[in-house]
Structures are given as structure tokens and as C-alpha cells.
């Protein structure tokens, strides 16, 4: 178990170094950072001095190591656009994105999993067929369209919910939250649905097919033959056996939600990291882009590690595989 975690951590370090290389080359080779930093009337000499001062004349490996060293300490330099430290710029916006992604994930799990269970248990029922068909729409509509449609219906026509921004937030010093005010919660609803709808249909379809599979197994038939209640059979035995693939996909989805909140944040003018990234791309603000890349890389690595650990919690066959498997009889 410990060996497994250490091995996974080593792999995570390799992945992060690779992402670091990509981020570094972004810095190094997409345009000349000096050009972005100085005005047009700066002389060649001044440019050269600045280049020397920033260490841009050192060899690539030295620069890379310096970049990694700084990145580990959370130093990503100054934004070309606002001249603020990139680390602070991103940290300010992380809460907005994480809260949005959290709400979307909650929406997916609370609605998608039960829908998947239901359609898996009663595949022939008309309501299952209806859900299956409706879920096709969720898969085929692009998020920006869903967002705009939701705004049209619930904000413009019905005036029920706000169409942009985070609404009212509470500043906790290191974190700004939407969860403590009614307005903040209202502002979360439409973006969360927009962000989650596509993934919701995916998780519903995954749970459904896994349930169909598990319901055919002998241990489910035997559980019925033991006279267990439907609830115990369906949720205690069947659903738990679908969890390993579902956790895998849900973990990847959470990463995707955060990484690709960009579209939703743009549609709803949500002041999150994704929106920051879009602005940075428009200004070729490479330090921010590089930091964003590293952040997302880190996020996926952490989520994958968490997913691997969850496998152990769910499936006893993965625990003590080395030790006591198949004791003598």
C-alpha cells in the first residue's frame, strides 16, 4: 500500500516535470518576452541589459531549473498584462472556479447517478427510454448554447436568476465564497447546470451500462435468492460494484470541470481562473498561461492519486494483494 503510494508519487513528479517542460517552452519560444515587457522606444542596449538581468541569456537547462525552482515556490513572475504577481492573480480567482466546479460536480452526482441507477434497473420502462433520449440532447448541445438558452429562459424572460457574475460574495480573508449569501447561491445555479449538463449525461450513461452489467451477475441473483430487500440488492450490492469505473470517470470529470470551465465562465462572466486564462491568451500573457498549465497539470495528478486511493477503499481485492491472498484451505 505504502509502496504503491510512493510509486504513484514518483510518477506524479515525472508528469509534473513534463508539464513543466511544456510550460517552460511556452515561455521561452512563444514570442520574445522582452518585447512584451518594454515599449517600442527602448534601445537595443537596454533590452540586452534587461535580457541579462532576467537570465534569458543562460543556457536552456539552467533556465529550466530556475523556472522549476521558482514554480515550486509558487513564483511565476509578473503578469505582462497587469504587472501583478501571477501567483496572487491566480489564487484570487481560484475560489470562484473551485466553487463553481464543486457545485457542478454535486449536481452531476446527485442527479446523474440516481438517474443512471434508475435507467439501469428499469431499462424497458418508458421513463428510462425518455431519460435516455433526453440525455442525448445533453450530450449533443454545446455548453455555450446551453448557457445562453438558460440565460434566455431564467434570467431574461423569467427574471428568476442572475445572468452574470458571482453575485454577492463573502471574503474570508484567504477565500471568497458564494455559499454564505442567498444572492451568491442564486448566481451559482445557472453556471453550475451549464458546466455540469454534459458530464451529467455521461455519468448517467456510464452508471446505467455498469448497472445493466452488474445486475446480470450471479452474486446479484444470489443476493435475491437470499431474500434481501430490493434496496439492499440495488444499492448495497449492485451500485457499489459499479463504483470503481464510476469513480475513475468522475475523478477525470472533476478535473475536466475545473480545466474547461473556461467556456462557462466566459458565457456567465464568472470571474474565475478560466476567464483569466482567456484574457491572458488574448494578451499573450505567457506567465499566466504557463502557471495555469502547471496548475491544471497538478490538479489532474492530485485527482488521479485520490482516485487510486479510493479504489482501495472500495475494492478489498486490491488491498493486501501481496499478503494473504488465497490462504490455504
Amino acid at each position: 500500500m505504502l509502496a504503491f503510494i510512493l510509486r504513484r508519487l514518483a510518477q506524479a513528479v515525472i508528469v509534473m516535470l513534463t508539464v513543466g517542460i511544456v510550460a517552460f517552452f511556452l515561455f521561452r519560444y512563444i514570442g520574445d518576452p522582452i518585447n512584451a515587457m518594454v515599449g517600442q522606444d527602448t534601445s537595443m542596449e537596454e533590452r540586452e541589459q534587461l535580457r541579462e538581468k532576467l537570465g534569458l541569456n543562460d543556457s536552456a537547462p539552467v533556465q529550466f531549473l530556475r523556472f522549476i525552482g521558482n514554480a515550486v515556490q509558487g513564483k511565476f513572475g509578473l503578469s505582462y498584462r497587469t504587472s501583478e504577481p501571477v501567483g496572487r492573480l491566480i489564487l484570487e480567482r481560484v475560489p470562484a472556479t473551485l466553487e463553481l466546479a464543486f457545485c457542478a460536480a454535486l449536481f452531476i452526482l446527485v442527479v446523474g447517478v440516481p438517474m443512471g441507477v434508475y435507467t439501469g434497473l428499469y431499462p424497458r420502462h418508458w421513463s428510462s427510454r425518455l431519460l435516455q433520449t433526453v440525455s442525448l440532447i445533453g450530450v449533443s448541445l454545446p455548453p455555450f448554447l446551453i448557457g445562453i438558452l438558460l440565460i434566455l429562459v431564467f434570467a431574461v424572460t423569467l427574471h428568476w436568476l442572475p445572468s452574470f457574475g458571482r453575485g454577492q460574495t463573502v471574503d474570508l480573508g484567504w477565500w471568497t465564497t458564494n455559499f454564505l449569501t442567498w444572492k451568491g447561491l442564486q448566481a451559482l445555479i445557472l453556471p453550475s447546470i451549464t458546466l455540469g449538463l454534459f458530464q451529467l449525461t455521461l455519468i448517467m450513461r456510464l452508471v446505467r451500462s455498469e448497472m445493466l452489467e452488474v445486475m446480470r451477475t450471479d452474486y446479484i441473483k444470489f443476493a435475491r435468492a437470499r431474500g434481501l430487500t430490493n434496496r439492499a440488492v440495488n444499492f448495497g450490492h449492485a451500485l457499489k460494484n459499479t463504483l470503481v469505473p464510476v469513480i475513475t470517470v468522475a475523478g477525470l470529470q472533476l478535473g475536466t470541470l475545473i480545466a474547461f470551465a473556461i467556456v462557462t465562465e466566459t458565457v456567465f462572466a464568472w470571474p474565475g481562473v478560466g476567464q483569466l486564462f482567456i484574457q491572458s491568451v488574448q494578451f499573450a500573457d505567457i506567465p499566466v498561461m504557463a502557471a495555469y498549465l502547471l496548475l491544471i497539470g497538478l490538479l489532474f495528478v492530485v485527482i488521479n492519486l485520490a482516485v487510486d486511493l479510493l479504489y482501495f477503499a472500495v475494492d478489498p481485492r486490491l488491498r493486501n494483494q501481496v499478503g494473504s491472498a488465497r490462504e490455504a484451505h
Partner: protein
Amino acid sequence: MATPSNNPPLLEVKNLRVEFPTRRGTLLAVDDVSFDIAPGEVLGVVGESGAGKSLTGNAIIGLLEPPGRIAAGEIRLEGRRIDNLPYEEMRKVRGARIGAIFQDPLTSLNPLYSVGRQLVETIQTHLPLSAADARRRALDLLKEVGIPGAETRIDHYPHQFSGGMRQRVVIALALCAGPRLIVADEPTTALDVSIQAQIIALLKGLCREHATAVMLVTHDMGVIAETADRVAVMYAGRIAEIGPVRDVVKQARHPYTKGLMGSIPSLGVRHDRLTQIDGTMPRLTEIPPGCAFNPRCTERGSRCLSERPELMSAGTSRAACWLHDRGGVGAPIVRETADA
């Protein structure tokens, strides 16, 4: 041991028909099957795969897989009709009054729960016991089915047990609410030969102690001969012969049973060669008119081609064969013409 007439049977199956509606018409998988099981009796049900023996068992525990369904007939347990119970009522019968054992112990247990947990949940579903009492009962059961070191093994997961040990756990699960009948569907088929005998002996011993009746479905005549009180031989969805196991083994009345017995090698008797029944069991879509066995039968007559025999008395057994009717099988048929 035949059913004593003064004792009401534990299980009565009357004219049971199991159908599978398919796109190309309805398949009759179990056709007009009737039998009784007395309290504490072991009834062996034997036949080739597809003969309908497992479906009969599934119909009794109310777990026919859709689209299969009971089309006619009735099943009574302790006098109470159970084939038409609503799902929730039947659920309370399963596990509590009728236990079940399936073929493959490797897949019968949920891999994600410890065997103790699976026992406790079954016990608590049917008996009003506290968690601690249920666990104590689970532990006793594991000891009873011969799991060494039951105190520690109770918290182990199915993958930590061998096949034979898992089947013991399955037996403990089938017995844990004290059922009156156990439907055991090929309980030893998936096991090593050396383990088979142990499991059969265990099942037989436990059921005798608890006065539990067993419907033992198998294609292994040896297991039946060793374990059962009576035996029903099934062929193409019908019972071909039913009677006390000794008589059926020693003096088979139906040509199919004779063929089955002839195909078992026995120690001590020198066989020049084992007999073999020519041909295969007909598919459910192609059951011939008259006696379903007639294309393979060596003793058939013209009557077998047109009239279907019901079970009729033949010595101490009953057999579905015109040989035991006063009218006989009718005119003999020349073999070549039938083969053409």
C-alpha cells in the same frame, strides 16, 4: 424413501409450465411438470443441459429470468401457493423458507463485502436479531459448514477463500435463516472432483440435522445415487421418470433413463464398453410429436411417434413411456426409414 401418504408434502409442483416468449413464437422450456417433495426429503433432478431442470428450480424460488415466465400450473410450499405471490411477499419466502445454492461459488458471493457481512445481512433480513446476535449466529454457521478458523475468517473477503471454502460459505448463506427447502442448482459442478464429495456430504449432513428438504439439480447421476431419496429424470422439459433412487438406478423404466445409467462406469463390474445414447436432445423449437425421446429411442413403436405418454406407474416408479401402458408402443418401426 417414498412420500408417506399421511404427511402433507412440503413442496407441491403441479402441471408447471415455463415459457419463453421469443420473436419467433413461444418456447415451452418446462412442460407440464408435477412432483412433490416431502419434509426432509432429498429429491434429485437429473437431465442433460437444456432439459429444464434449472428452470424448474428457478421457478420454485421465483427467480425466473425475464422474459421467462410461469405460464400455467401451481407451486405450493407447506400448502401455501407461492408461484403467484407479489414480489415483496415472495422475497420474504426466499432465504427464509426456501434457500438456494447456485452452481458457481466463485461468482455467487459479492466480492466487495466480507463473508460475515453477507451472512449478517441475510440473517437480519429474515430474523429479528441484533447485530451482535446475528454475528454470533453467522460465526456458528461458518463453524458448522466446516470453515477452519471461523473467528478470523468471518471478516475475510470472498477472494481470500478457495472454491470449496466459498461453496461452504454459500451453503451457510442458504441455511442461515433456517429454510425448510433448499434448491441446490449444480452445487458441485464447478468444483474439483476431490472437493465435490466433501461438499455433497456436508450438504447432506446439514440438511439431515436441520430436517431441511433438498431439491438437488445436477447432471451427475453419481451425486444423485449417493445423496437423493428420490430422483426425477427430465428430458426436453418434461419428467421422463420419477421414483425412489435405488429403483431408478437399478431398474430404470424409461429407455432414456436406461441409457443414462448405461453411460455411467461402475467399479467392480467389467464393462466391455459404455453404452451411449445416439443423437442429441432436440432443441425446444424442434420437439417431435409424440414422445420427445422417440428419435433416439431403441424401443419405440408407431404409437410413440403420434401419442405423447404421460407419467404412468411402472413398478415402484412412474415413467412417461408407452412400454408401461397396456396398449404398448404399437407397431415396431424399421430403423432405416426413420433415419432417412
